[in-house]
């Protein structure tokens, strides 16, 4: 049996994160939530996660800054950037340059989220999505 995929959801919007976490848990993933970028950096440092859902718009430490800090010590962790629609200000080029596996707009449906997640996991050499 495949080892359980451990997902870290980094989002200051806890209500959004809660739904996503519940959904992913129901699909067999192990989910951890972090409200702040700084917490996320610490958790990633502990090296207990396989993939990261990272909200780009966060107070204090932004998603981009969080990713930059993570990439300083971990260049391989798959990261899915979560964006709100109408994200005019986000510089996708900057985010892309830091290495991302996919984007998920918050307005998307849960099945779309699953799709992005599965694509990211498959593209990774060692990770596989749980069989459904």
């Amino acid at each position, binding site marked *: 049996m495949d080892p359980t995929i451990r997902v870290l959801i980094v989002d200051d*919007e806890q*209500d*959004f994160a*809660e*739904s*996503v976490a*519940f*959904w992913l848990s*129901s699909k067999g993933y192990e989910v951890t939530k972090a409200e702040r970028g700084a917490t996320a950096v610490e958790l990633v440092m502990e090296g207990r996660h396989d993939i990261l859902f990272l909200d780009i718009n966060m107070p204090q430490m932004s998603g981009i800054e969080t990713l930059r800090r993570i990439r300083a010590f971990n260049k391989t962790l798959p990261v899915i950037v979560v964006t*709100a*629609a*109408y994200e*005019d200000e986000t510089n996708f080029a900057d985010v892309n340059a830091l290495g991302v596996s996919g984007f998920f707009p*918050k*307005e998307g*449906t*849960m099945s779309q989220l699953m799709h992005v997640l599965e694509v990211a996991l498959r593209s990774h050499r060692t990770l596989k999505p749980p069989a459904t």
Partner: protein
Amino acid sequence: MRLTRMVIGHLGWISLAGFSAAPWAFGAASASETEQTMRMAIIVGTVLGAVLIGLLLYQFSQRSSQAQFKGSSVSELPAARAAVAEDTKLFMPVVLEQLNQLAMAPEQRQRVARTVSEIVTQTFEKQVNTVKRQLNDQYGQVIEEKRRNEAILQRKYQDTLTEKKQTVAILESIAEGLVVVNNRGEVVMMNPAAERLLAVNQQERVGKPLTENLRDEQLVSLVKGSKDHNQEIVLSAKQDRTKRVLRASNAVITDENGTTVGMVAVLSDVTRQRELDQLKSEFVSKVGHELRTPIVAMRHALSILTDQVAGPMSEEQQKFAGIVQRNLERLGALINDLLDLSKLEAHKMELRLEPNAIGAVIQTVCDSLDAWAKTKAIAISKRVPDDLPAVPFDQARITQVLTNLVGNAIKFTPKQGRITVEAKLDQEQQAVVVSVSDTGIGIAKEDLPKLFNKFQQVGERTASDISGTGLGLAITKEIIELHHGRVWAESELQQGTRFVFTLPLTQPSVAVTPG
């Protein structure tokens, strides 16, 4: 004229002399006292008559040359005197001769001569004075008339001067900048507000082309872009990085023949207005995002319930969850529309213009809405010629427009109705014309102009499924106008409605706005 007067005057003397000499000549045989008295009377009569007639004739000749008189003056009076004196010379020999013939003592003759002379002198002076008075009167009238005319002129001049001062005061005190240029583009006039707004000096500018030495190229458009009656120009301040936005309303000045002689531009500083627009747009955008966040959270949480991930739901529970879901979608659509509109109004929406086939877009939209139309047994037909050329448009935005128009048609068409989506080439307009016609409830004529306003609902809503954000048509209009096309509606109550929009075959090259 003087010659005429002299001739007339002399003729008068000669005829009188002849007339007075006649009885004298006839009565020369008898030299009685009576005869002497008669001769005396004749002499005096001749002299007085001659003087009178001479003066009368002189006056007559004066009046006959009234036109010339206006230009003459009392300096003519010596001329009258001279005329009389000259005539006196003519008749004096006759008088003296008559006196000599009288049987009188030399003293008597001298007395007679003196008396005659006095009478002549007095009469002459009297007449001359009369003439002088008349001339003075006439001269006075002329002077008075001239003075009156001068006063009128002076008053009119003062009035004009006052009016000019008032106009200048108004022009100088208005907040709007005013620039008048001639047909060569040279500045004829600019008020202080214009100097301030354009940061130039009138003294330096008048008589020079408006564009000379002006670093701000946008100003060139003031004179060159006179076709645009209203335009906005952005000026960068030389000292700092602040920008000012001026709105220029131009009007062409024509003479009575309709030839363009210049142009007047009224400039207003709309910087603050633009800043407020920007603030409003940012506010709407911010509010939109803030509203979206809880909606997204609710939607995801709800989907966990409705997808029964968190456990099974009863039918009743599903029904009410469905109501929540529908209204969340509606709220989401409203926010999306608001954000779209705020972007469009802030001119922040950029089009991805690529040559596209409108037929393909019509097909996609009709296919996606067909299921909904079928629920009302509405048939959607398409009429698109195969040889329709590709036109440059933003596919996503035109899809949005068509979805909105066909969606509206489905909403407002009763069951069993028909919807026709048509596209054709209009060579004259150099555009592809797309129309969406329905057999729906129609729109009253007076409501047609209001259709494209925000949150405008026209007529009475009866069907329960008629709901929307009220922004669809406002967005449609903005998107079409961004494509340099036009959109309008034709309708008859209970006959159906036809929405038409045009997409130009070519798009103007994107204007480069500095800064």
